[in-house]
């Protein structure tokens, strides 16, 4: 049986993929979604707390409520959704791409796509990647796994927990564990400032009298079968452990909230260019990767903090994929964006100046800045400027660039942030 042909196939039905599929459908392309879990919604299924959708809907929704809106639209539009379907292989074909997939109903099957949107999300950094030492007792989990255990499976991983990492996921889990009957002994953060939103510091830690220890990290776990305690250690300004400042904290669970890594391993066979600073593909303002017809969005492109921006990137990628599939394709003229000064990273990494219109740029500051200025220039000429009262690395910023301002023949565009 020959594979079904689609204009656009979206890999992943989390918020990024759902938005991409809707946008592709709106643009008139035939589109289907491929999702490895039993239900769509991605990580939002387990993010039962609220705070999602302020930018996109002007409402404070829970993860499932936010996902529901897009899932209902996908259903309403009759967009085909493959669930519990796993992508085994990805290859180029004459007209675009060939996907090899498996699931329980169809066994192994193929899909052909003129364009692809990779909305594969991200994974969590592990204990091994932050070099925590000791034996391998039960009781060491990443925060996302704990969230899934509590909110989907219905189990507490432990009763006396230490959390490493004060990013929003760690803070949210501090509250969730406490409400479900565990004791959170403290949240430890290696940086001198907390990583998460102030709102979460108040509503997840202060509300429950959970202490926050800054400039402190966990270096060792104790216990052979089950975790018995951890060694915490103060660190210096370079985040290196200060010998002699170790302290033993008895606990039975260590929850790690130590960062997210974009997941793009399925793109390896295609040799897509990846930006080492973001962990995601190098893209232009259409979210086109270095592979013609392959678009990236959501946390697979770079780790977002607002799901609203994930959806926005999905809309852009989906619309771009549809245009590509429907034949509206011209070879791009790419001008790289050089991120300078206090910029940790910027996405997209280049602009296709053959197109007019607007381009949305996202960037993160490398450190906390007050009274900062972002200057966009090309060939020494300032194209735009924006001032910020305060910028923090955990809060990603978004600016809209008018592409008509970019003079022709420029070698690169400079994005510089000064504190």
């Amino acid at each position, binding site marked *: 049986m020959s594979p079904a042909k689609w204009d656009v196939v979206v890999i992943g039905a989390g918020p990024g993929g759902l938005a991409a599929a809707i946008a592709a459908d709106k643009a008139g392309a035939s589109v289907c979604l491929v999702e490895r879990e*039993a*239900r769509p919604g991605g990580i939002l*299924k387990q993010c*039962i*707390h*609220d705070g999602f959708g302020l930018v996109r809907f002007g409402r*404070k*929704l*829970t*993860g*499932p*409520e936010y996902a*529901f809106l897009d*899932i209902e639209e996908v259903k309403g539009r009759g967009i085909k*959704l493959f*669930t519990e379907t796993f992508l085994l292989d990805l290859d180029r074909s004459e007209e675009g791409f060939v996907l090899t997939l498996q699931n329980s109903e169809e066994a192994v099957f193929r899909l052909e796509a003129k364009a692809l949107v990779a909305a594969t999300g991200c994974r969590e950094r592990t204990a091994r990647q932050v070099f925590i030492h000791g034996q391998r007792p039960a009781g060491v989990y990443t925060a996302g796994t704990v969230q899934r255990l*509590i*909110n*989907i*499976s*219905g189990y507490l991983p432990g009763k006396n927990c230490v959390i490493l990492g004060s990013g929003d996921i760690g803070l949210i889990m501090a509250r969730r564990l406490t*409400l*479900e009957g565990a004791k959170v002994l403290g949240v430890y953060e290696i940086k001198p400032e907390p990583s998460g*939103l*102030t*709102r979460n*510091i*108040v*509503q997840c830690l202060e*509300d429950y009298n959970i202490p926050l220890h800054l400039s402190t990290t966990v270096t060792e776990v104790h216990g052979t079968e089950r975790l018995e305690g951890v060694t915490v250690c103060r660190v210096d300004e370079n985040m290196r452990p200060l010998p002699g400042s170790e302290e033993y904290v008895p606990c039975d669970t260590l929850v790690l909230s130590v960062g997210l890594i974009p997941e793009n391993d399925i793109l390896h066979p295609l040799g897509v260019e990846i930006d080492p600073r973001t962990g995601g593909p190098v893209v232009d303002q259409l979210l086109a990767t270095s592979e013609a017809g392959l678009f990236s969005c959501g946390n697979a492109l770079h780790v977002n903090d607002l799901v609203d921006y994930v959806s926005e990137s999905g809309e852009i990628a989906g619309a771009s994929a549809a245009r590509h599939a429907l034949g509206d394709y011209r070879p791009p003229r790419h001008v790289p964006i050089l991120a300078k000064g206090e910029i940790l990273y910027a996405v997209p990494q280049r602009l296709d100046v053959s197109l007019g219109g607007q381009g949305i740029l996202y960037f993160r500051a490398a450190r906390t800045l007050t009274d900062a200025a972002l200057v966009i220039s090309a060939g020494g000429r300032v194209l735009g400027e924006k001032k910020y*009262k*305060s910028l923090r690395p955990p*809060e990603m910023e978004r600016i809209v660039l008018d592409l008509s301002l970019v003079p022709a023949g420029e070698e690169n565009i400079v994005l510089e942030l000064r504190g």
Partner: protein
Amino acid sequence: MEKLLVCIQCPQGCKLMVKTEGEEVLVAGNKCPRGASYARQELLNPCRTLTTTVRTEFPDFPLLPVRTAGEIPLGSLFAAMGEINRLLVRNRLRPGDVVLERVSGTDVPLIATADMTLN
């Protein structure tokens, strides 16, 4: 009574100081009126939205995520959790469906936030 807090109404994050003086509540440090009302509320009657899960009788959807439809007093959260943890959902609910009419003595209902219906 006195309290130091950071306002969370907007990204500015003004540092506020709020205290009672006799009958009055005084707020200092706010750059807008929203800050003042937030500070007053936080001192006198801090309220929160509670988000949690409720057990269901469906093996394919064992826990239903829920939220209070509005904010309830911070002090009543644990009592609310106890009450919510004794519930069992017997129908396939959708977002917005009421799970519990009144949570913990308030008039705030508990509503479903996910779609339990089969595809």
